[in-house]
Structures are given as C-alpha cells and as structure tokens.
C-alpha cells in the first residue's frame, strides 16, 4: 500500500477538520433554536406596552384571590382546601403557606375553601369560605 504523500495527508486532515466543524455547527443550529425563540419573545415583551396580557390576567386572579383569602379568613383559623380544581386547590395551599395558616384534615377544619368561577365575578373568580364550626 502506498503511503499518502504529505500533501494528501494535509488535505485529508483539513477535510476532517472542516467536517468536524460542520457537524458542530449543525448541532449548534439545532440546539440553539430555543434561545432565538426566547430572545424574540423576550424582545417583544420588552417593547410591548401591555406585555403578556393573559399572564397579567392570571396573575391578577391569583393576587385577588390571595387578598380575599387574607381579608376573609383570620390567621388563627384552621383551614381545609376543598376545591377540586387542581389549579386553585394548589394556589390556595400556596397562599395558606404564605399567610402562615394551619392546614388540617377536612373534619378538623374551621373553614373549607373553594374558588368559584364565573364570567361576572371580578377577574372571573370568587373565593368561597364555608364555615363548619
């Protein structure tokens, strides 16, 4: 077998290096699309006068329900989150922890908490506190 000449080896080495760089660029092209999506979405958000209106609505709902919770339920009350909708059940537990409330089993609780939903309510939600003392 004839040994490759230095020129052939140099060309071969260059070809391999180009191939490796090309493969890495392809990996990079496919692997960084998300960052461009994020940058694009982020730029839109930064420029918009009312960015993320749906997110703003959901946040307003949460902050409204939380404020109602603390207004209607004294912190010494033992509570049970009875709502079955996992979004609001989990939010009520979160707000209870923020407010340092005691969460207890249903039959021990002073009050049961629900979130009702209807278009006519403020932010389309309403806290319902059922006293079972």
């Amino acid at each position, binding site marked *: 077998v004839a040994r490759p000449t230095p020129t052939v080896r140099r060309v071969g*080495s260059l070809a*391999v*290096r*180009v*191939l*490796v*760089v090309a*493969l*890495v*660029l*392809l*990996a*990079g092209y*496919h*692997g*960084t*699309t*998300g*960052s*461009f*999506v*994020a*940058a694009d*979405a*982020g*730029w839109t*958000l*930064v420029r918009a006068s009312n*960015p*993320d209106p749906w*997110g*703003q609505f*959901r*946040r307003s709902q*949460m*902050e409204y329900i939380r404020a109602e919770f603390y207004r209607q339920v004294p912190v010494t009350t033992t509570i049970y*989150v009875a709502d079955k909708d*996992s*979004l609001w059940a*989990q*939010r009520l*537990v*979160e707000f*209870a*922890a*923020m407010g*340092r409330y005691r*969460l*207890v*089993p249903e039959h021990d609780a002073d009050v049961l908490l629900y979130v009702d939903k209807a278009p006519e309510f403020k932010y389309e939600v309403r806290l319902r506190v059922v006293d079972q003392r």
Partner: protein
Amino acid sequence: VSSLIAVVVVAGSGLPMAYAVTRRPALALLLGPLATGLLASVAMFLMLLIGGNLLFWGAALVVSQGVLIWKLRGRAGSPLPQGSWVTVVAFTAPLLLPFMIARFQPIEWDAHSIWWLHAAYFSHDAGYARAALGAPAFWFSHPDYPPFTSAPIAAVWELLGDYDFRVAQVVSALTTFSAIGLLVYAVRRVTAAAPAPVSWFVAVGVGYVTWDPAPYSVTNGLNDALWAAAFGAAATLLLFDRRPLVDQALPVVLMAVAVLSKNEGFVMAVVLAAIVTVRERRDLVRTVLVWIPVAVGAVWIALARFFGAQSDLAGGARFDALVHGDVGTRLQTIVDAMWVEIGVVAAFAAAAAVVGGTFLRQRRRDFGLPSDGWLWAVNASYFAVLILTYMITPYGLDWHLVTSVERVTILNLLLAGVSAAGWAAVAIGPRGAGADLPGASAFDRRDTVRTVGRRPAVRTLLADVGFGAVHRGRAAGVVAGPLARPDRVQGS
C-alpha cells in the same frame, strides 16, 4: 423597587464567598447569586436543625463568611484563568438576549406549586417549616425536593415582608443566569487555547443550548435549567479541564448547587464524583472534595426524611413495571419522547465526537484538551437515570413525559454541546501558528508548576480549593508540572 432590592441582596450576600472561590471580581459577581443560594440553603438546614428563622441564620452566615474570608485573605490564592472583566462581560452579555423572556408574568405552574410554595413555608420559622415538610396538605408539591431554589426566595420575602411573585421570579432568574454564565465560563476556559473569538463563539453557543428544549422554563421560576447548567459547568471543569483537580472550589460549589436544586442533581453528583474518583484514582486524596456536595445532599435527604417529607418516586415507585407488563412498549415510548428533544443535536454532536476521536486525537492532545469520553459517560448515565425514572413513575407515563421530558433533558443537550464545543475548538486549532505551548494561554498568570511531595492531605485539599500556602512560584519542593513539559506541537 422590591425587585431591585432582591437583585442587590441576592447578588451581594454571597460575594465574599464567590470572591474567595474565584479570586476575580468579574467572576465573583457572576457567581454571587449561586453563593447566596448556597448560604440560604445552609441557613435553612440550620433553621430546621436548631430553630429560629431563616433570616437570622442567613444573616449569621453572611457575616461569618465575611469574617472567615477576611481571616484567610493572607493565604496565597490564585485567580482563576479567563476571569478578566473583558472576557467575562464578553461571554455574559449575549446571554441577556434570551434572558429577556424573564419579562413573562410569574405564573408558571411548577414555580408556584413547588418552589414558591416551599419558599412560603420556609419563610416563617422553624416550627412552621418542620410541620410543613411532613404535612399531607403539601405532599402534592414534593416537600422532599431540595431547598436551593426556594431558600433565597424565602429569605428575600422575609426580608421585604411581602410575598411578591415578581420578586420570586427575579431571584430565581438571577440564580439561573449565574449558573448558565458559569457554564459558558467553563467552556470558554477549557477551549481557551483556540483563538478567542472561536472560544467565545462555542462557549456562548453552549450557553444558548440551555434555552433550547423549553425556552419558557429557564427564567420563569423553574429550576431545571439552573441545576443542569450548574452541573454541566462542574462536569466540564472536572472532566474536560487540563488540570481537573487544581482549584476544585468552583466545580465543588457548582456541584453543591446542582445537588441542592433537584433530586436528579444528587444522583448525578454521585455519578460525577464516582467518575472523577475512578479517573483520578492515582491521586485519591484530591478526589475527596468532590464527595462533599454528595454529603451535603445526603444531609438534606436525612433532614427531609426526619421531618416526614414524602418522595413521590421512592414512595410510589413501581419497580414492578421493570419486569411486568409492557416493558418494551414503555421503553419505546420513553426513548421516542426523549429523541424528539435531544436526538438531532445529540446525533450531530456524537458524530463530531466520533470523527474527531478517530482522526483528530493527536490534535486534541496538542491542544491540551482531555478526552471527552468521560463527558459522554456522564451523559449516558443521565440518560439511563431518566429512562429508569420514567419506567418506575407512579404517574401515568404519557402525562409524566408530556409535563417534564423537555425540561429534564437539558443536561443531555448541554453535555453533548460541551463535547461539540471542544471538538470545534480542536478542529480550528490553537491560536497563533507558532504557539509553542498549546493550551498554555488558558493558564496565563497561573502557576506553571505544581506542588508535590509529602504535604499533609489537609493542606493539599486547602491548596486545591484555592487556599494553598505554597501554590505559586518557585517555592522549594515543587517540580515542573504538565505545562513546563514541552508538549508535542501540531505540525512539528
């Protein structure tokens, strides 16, 4: 205003520790939020163990780290390479573009249901936190998940006296940004022998990969990107750096961040520590440090168990799914779902690694880059961990995959990206045609000698984390290290 205060507190509280680790102001600023997160996590451990509240222990730790580091300031430490202001700003600034997505409202489901809920029950006092960990009402939120993400939020909320969702998101985004920045730093450092623009390009590229599978998840209160980037940075520094066990402080800190962020982080820290130990078996004493994060993770697991926190997997794992039923179908479903997220990128990166490993091995050695085989071993281990996790999931498999697979595969992509970045740098080559010490540029300003001889183990370890008394210069008892040996030069 609250968000601004949060930024200052989170960036600033851990600065002394961050500076001790890096000895570079620019890198310290980048590492600051993660150092603060670690201090807050340790404060949480102390609160759970001893009592009191998070703010008290946090303040105590911030003050004592300052005093400790002031006491240790006389020790010769060496600044980390590639840590100048220009270098750090150059690779950090491009990350701000995708980071803008942090403007989304703070409404992510898992952010509220897991991390901010945990922050809420950690923010009052030891009594409430201990009770919450074992309370059935909180089980849906996985109280056994580690505290790194929640602890600094809890501390800032307590400090401000207000449970602002936006503040929580800002704290979370800041720690995540810090982790991604350090991943980029790690890649920039190991590829520093390449021309600076090439090293910069591949490093920023790897950072951008963090946003790939799930752009919304990076800066909006979730921590999948945080732990993956921190772990990826640690793995890069420990397995892909020319001198992996010198200056272990930064990778050890990053491992601790990963361990205290996610349960997968603990599993993978055990894998990484084991791989480092096997790889550096001739120098076992030096590998002790990488087990510290594992120990820290074990402390959290013990605490969580002690206070009754339930683990969804350990508690409800269906190991029977591994032997009974449609094992093949489940496996196929899992692999298919993961392929969608990582397949193309991993395939191109693996192809680059195979071609490079076959034809450019000598060139890689001349460049000063270790084999990427270890990184792929970590990557494969994580792949296996994910498959096992999904196989034994107590939830419906389809639901579990749909809700998580795009976020949990970030680490696979990052590790593939680090390997690819290394090969691109090797293929393009060291900077300057006549660079007679390829790779040396990565360690300019650093010691080119390595201490050996009969030093007590403790002092060896102190030196490794940057507190060495004899670490630099021509002190007696040192011999020429790897950089003093003229390496084979490409083309010579």
